[in-house]
């Protein structure tokens, strides 16, 4: 190879097509590791797809524990669990719902699930979310609504604050009417993990 600086300059700027091969002693043992200051103490690390699958299935199991005392999900075979995950991972609606619809059923003699899986997220508290036991049907047989749920477990969300600043109650980025029956919301507006994830957002002031 030449020491001629002009040739090297041409190579550098790509004016001369070249092919390089590294000598064995030019090859380093390991690549430099990227430096990430990942906040391990505050955030869940997602090291692999398996970890995300495990977390997703864990949420599914918890949702069914609330809805059916885990009976439906425990009766499923391992391949059904796998199908739920693969359907979600590969964005295959029919594949996912072929199994998930069983998790949305309830016995004919009942009016709904045993308890509704939900989590409420607020910005006003350090607590990551609110999750409590809440039945979809009242003792008198009336269906509980979204408003009933909020009144019971998170009254500050719908109570008008001083100055009339209201909150938005959002699921999937939309505001369902507070009169919507909770059972219906759980069957039709749950996230893939079968939970209703409800965000309480201060009303934008503009």
């Amino acid at each position, binding site marked *: 190879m030449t020491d001629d600086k002009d040739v090297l300059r041409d190579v550098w700027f790509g004016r001369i097509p070249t092919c390089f091969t590294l000598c064995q002693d030019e090859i380093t043992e390991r690549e430099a590791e990227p430096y990430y200051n990942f906040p391990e*103490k505050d955030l869940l690390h997602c090291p692999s797809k398996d970890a995300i699958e*495990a977390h997703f299935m864990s949420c599914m199991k918890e949702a069914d524990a609330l809805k059916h005392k885990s009976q439906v999900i425990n009766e499923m075979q391992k391949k059904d669990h796998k199908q739920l995950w693969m359907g979600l991972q590969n964005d295959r609606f029919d594949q996912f719902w072929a199994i998930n619809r069983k998790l949305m059923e309830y016995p004919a003699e009942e009016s709904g699930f045993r308890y509704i899986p939900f989590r409420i997220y607020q910005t006003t508290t350090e607590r990551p979310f609110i*999750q409590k036991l809440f039945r979809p049907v009242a003792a008198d047989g009336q269906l509980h609504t979204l408003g009933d749920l909020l009144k019971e477990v998170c009254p500050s969300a719908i109570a008008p604050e001083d100055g009339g600043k209201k909150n938005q109650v959002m699921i999937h980025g939309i505001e369902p009417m507070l009169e919507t029956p909770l059972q219906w919301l759980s069957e039709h507006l749950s996230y893939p993990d079968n939970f209703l994830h409800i965000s309480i957002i201060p009303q934008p002031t503009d």
Partner: protein
Amino acid sequence: MEQDEFFGEKAFQHCCAEFIKHSQLIGDGWEWRTSKDCSDGYMCKTHLQIKNGTVAPRPRPSAHEQTGLPMEEAAELALDDAEAAEVPAVSPVIRYEYHVLYSCSFQVPVLYFRASFLDGRPLTLEDIWEGVHECYRTRLLQGPWDTITQQMVAMAGAVPIQSQEPGGSFFQVSHEHPILGQPFFVLHPCKTNEFMTPVLKNPQKINRNINYVTSWLSVVGPVVGLNLPLSYAQAASQDM
């Protein structure tokens, strides 16, 4: 409608109160913490351990109170004493934290835990598992661990740790603590009912009192390095 509650939150809180009473008696370090905005709470214990498996001597209350140092620094004072004895000088100290919360979804207690070095760097699950293995290998080789772990292998929703030892697969999922919001490892609660039911049935037959939390913690605790002195069980059988 609520009679089918197997182990309700009130029962949990009562068992914890009894458990902590005994802990205070024997200086075992458990305390109750409530969340700021809610009536629910959890039991919590922290202990320090030198990485090679020796348990660090508990900081004497006087060192902590008199010097006014935070707990970790007071412990290091105590460690200096230990080092003078026999412990090798350069052994990292690990801070283990155990939280016992109530899961209303599964209606059982759940064990959350994490470990970190004193500078805050967290340990991975493999590191924690390694530490536990040394101390509790014999216990883990005995049943019923094999049965429990085999059942848990069949359960999706957990990440098994690969290990050659029998009983070496154990199930923890990295999870957000429901009150603190920080990542912890969790022993998945979905099988708790299964192994607790026989534990509860027997005493009922012979009309003896047990504390659900004590019995449960004595089963799951050792797998993550948490040991319960026998006196807890004796105390439980004397309680109302």
